[in-house]
């Protein structure tokens, strides 16, 4: 077994800690987190991933978590969260990854030409712009 796969075990988004009860190791270099998408695939957190609170702030929640949960009472993009909280985008993704793992927030993946290969997405955007 190489060192790489050994690292991968406790590093995933579903890791809740090591068997001896230690918190999961942090990987400060991982700027882009992995989340599930509606179609069961995996997607990176994007600037326009919409974040929605799953609950109100639990007692003892950190100020950062409380602020995100308050802001995300209605869906809000990661870019907007980064702007309102004045946090660099990479720091924002780390915080949100933590909160997805803790089941505090839910992520709604962006629509792309790849996820919606038919023309309906382009047509919807076109019609929306025409109404401006």
């Amino acid at each position, binding site marked *: 077994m190489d060192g790489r796969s050994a690292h991968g075990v406790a590093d995933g988004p579903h890791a809740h800690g090591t068997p001896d009860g230690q918190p999961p190791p942090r990987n400060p270099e991982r700027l882009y987190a992995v989340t599930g998408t509606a179609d069961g695939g995996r997607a990176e957190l*994007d600037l326009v991933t919409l974040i929605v609170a799953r609950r109100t702030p639990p007692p003892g929640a950190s100020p950062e978590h409380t602020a995100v949960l308050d802001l995300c009472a*209605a869906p809000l993009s990661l870019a907007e969260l980064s702007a309102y909280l004045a946090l660099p985008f990479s720091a924002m993704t780390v915080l949100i990854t933590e909160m997805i793992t803790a089941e505090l927030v839910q992520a709604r993946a962006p629509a792309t030409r790849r996820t919606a290969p038919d023309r309906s997405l382009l047509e919807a955007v076109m019609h*929306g712009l025409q109404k401006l």
Partner: protein
Amino acid sequence: MDFKSSDTIPGPRTADQLPHTAQAAVKIVIVGGFGVGKTTMVGSVSEIKPLTTEETMTQAGIGIDDNYGSETKTATTVAMDFGRISITDKLVLYLFGTPGQERFWFLWNGLFEGALGAVVLVDTRRLEVSFDVMGRLEERGVPFVVAVNSFPDAPRYPVEELRTALDLTPEIPIIDCDVRRRASSKDVLLTLMRFLHSLALSGALA
């Protein structure tokens, strides 16, 4: 329950909140040199006051593998302005204005991935800035249109002359615009969408 912190986080005004039905977002990137009008364009069509997201980068890290031990690393903050347009109850469009300099793009690994397309905003007084940008977009397979922002003191060229000067293939739309005007910015975005639609029809989009 009381806030533990006395700081109030400024969030979106109630009127600026997205509906709970918002399921997914799409993005369009506006690229161009400094001062070409990216933020003005975002602001003229956005339903919210443009916001800024930031990233810090380490200069020495760009394109260099062994920067450990470098004594000259400097951190630079790069800001990107963006706005938002609600398309339907379920779909939201975000517009990002990003500096044309290629080195900034490292920060936004993922900025262009998943983008519907891009608008290259051009100032005829500084055409050379656009060459590198367009080359990079082509490499990344990001479809784009070219919008020429008409500054009062900038020289005006016929579209076909610009096409030659910018070395653009005939199918790439070039449009004149005044990004201060909402209707004009909207036209630019619709030109991009029609172009993307025609590419989809012809099967040119993967």
